[in-house]
């Protein structure tokens, strides 16, 4: 009987279905890419998302209306930013008494520290700045504390992730929890992890933020997306970020 064990192990390993990640284990979208796409993400000269990161880097040292730039507080090229703190976003702000995403914090600084007019989610400065700051934490494991003050956001986001939407009438979790690794036409489905965001999407040909990505999914379900910067997106970002805990930040990741 013991002699059979190695033979069985080889046979089991050869069955493709059994190589799929175990349920409950977080797997980066990177692991579902073909090797040449992985190589493109790893090679910062070939990674098309780096163009947006570099835009963000330039904005980082561009003075605002009051003459100050992000670099004045956070050091040249963000040298004084702590990757471990970046990896903790979204966080709960005691001052604001609410959850704050990384792009939300950038929006605050933009207005309050740089003296600029407020920028919205779709303004052209926000995505490059968010991409640049997340890029500074590349390699750092996502570490969102969804207990304590963020617990209610997490619970609400989890509920939204499991709620059916639109004419197609399916929930996010049905595809991303049950069908990761399977092919949807020419595209492999991933677990919908967020450690690579903002990501460069091949099918879009551009860098895409998380809120925009969720909007695309809802539109695909023939559902009405949530209003820009609505509480639902905040809940989902808290839940999805904590769901990616432990995965290394890959910004700018490349995805299909």
């Amino acid at each position, binding site marked *: 009987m013991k002699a059979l064990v190695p033979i069985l192990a080889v046979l089991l390993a050869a069955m*493709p279905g059994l190589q799929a990640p175990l349920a409950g284990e977080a797997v980066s979208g990177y692991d579902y890419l*073909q090797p040449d796409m992985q190589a493109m993400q790893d090679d910062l000269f070939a990674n098309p998302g780096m163009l947006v990161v570099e835009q963000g880097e330039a904005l980082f040292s561009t003075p605002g209306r009051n003459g100050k730039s992000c670099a004045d507080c956070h050091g040249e090229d963000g040298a004084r930013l702590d990757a471990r703190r970046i990896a903790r976003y979204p966080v709960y702000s005691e001052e604001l008494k609410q959850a704050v995403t990384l792009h939300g914090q950038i929006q605050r600084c933009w207005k309050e520290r740089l003296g600029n007019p407020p920028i919205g989610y779709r303004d052209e400065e926000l995505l490059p700045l968010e991409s640049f700051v997340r890029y500074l934490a590349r390699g750092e494991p996502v570490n969102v504390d969804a207990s304590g003050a963020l617990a209610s956001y997490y619970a609400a986001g989890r509920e939204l992730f499991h*709620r*059916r*939407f*639109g*004419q*197609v*009438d*399916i929930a996010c979790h*049905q*595809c991303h929890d*049950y*069908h990761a*690794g*399977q*092919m*949807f*036409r*020419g*595209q*492999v*489905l991933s677990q919908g992890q967020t450690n690579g965001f903002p990501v460069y999407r*091949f*099918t879009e040909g551009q860098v895409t933020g998380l809120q925009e990505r969720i909007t*695309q999914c*809802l*539109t*695909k379900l*023939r*559902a*009405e997306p949530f209003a820009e910067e609505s509480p639902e997106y905040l809940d989902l970002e808290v839940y999805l970020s904590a769901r990616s805990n432990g995965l290394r930040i890959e910004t700018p990741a490349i995805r*299909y």
Partner: protein
Amino acid sequence: MNKPVDSLAKRIRHYCHGLLGLAFLAPVALPADEAGNPPPYFDWQTENYEINTPLGGLTGVAERGRAIAADPLRGNCLACHQLPIPEEDFHGNLGPPLTGIASRQSTGMIRLHIVDQSRFNPETVMPGYYRPFGQLHRVAAEFRGRTYLSAQEVEDVVAYLATLK
């Protein structure tokens, strides 16, 4: 799981088909009468996991059904199923292959699978192409008050799949 993709040309088609699978950004040509109203909704009944009466008593045309199955903006069956439609690359595998489906299932059962797959599997990710639309949540305005496919389109796809013996 994923076929190796070699040439650049094939590669580009590969990504384009990813986009086709996601064709949600393109406007959908929805069936409507001259006044712009959606086609009428016909009730249907199941018996032993079959719908034996064609929706609205309509007759399907297999050739049209094949086109609907391949069309990413209508049936989009290829997103998840393999079908004997060799001119299209990159058939998905979320659902089972449908080649030879008519030798495994009756026409009535094929019809119920298309109309409301959740009758077989409540956790399915397949759209119910002709489910009653009263209980859906947050449907985008342009799709409210209509089924995913019209009764005629469903019957066309049923007629096509019934030829796959």
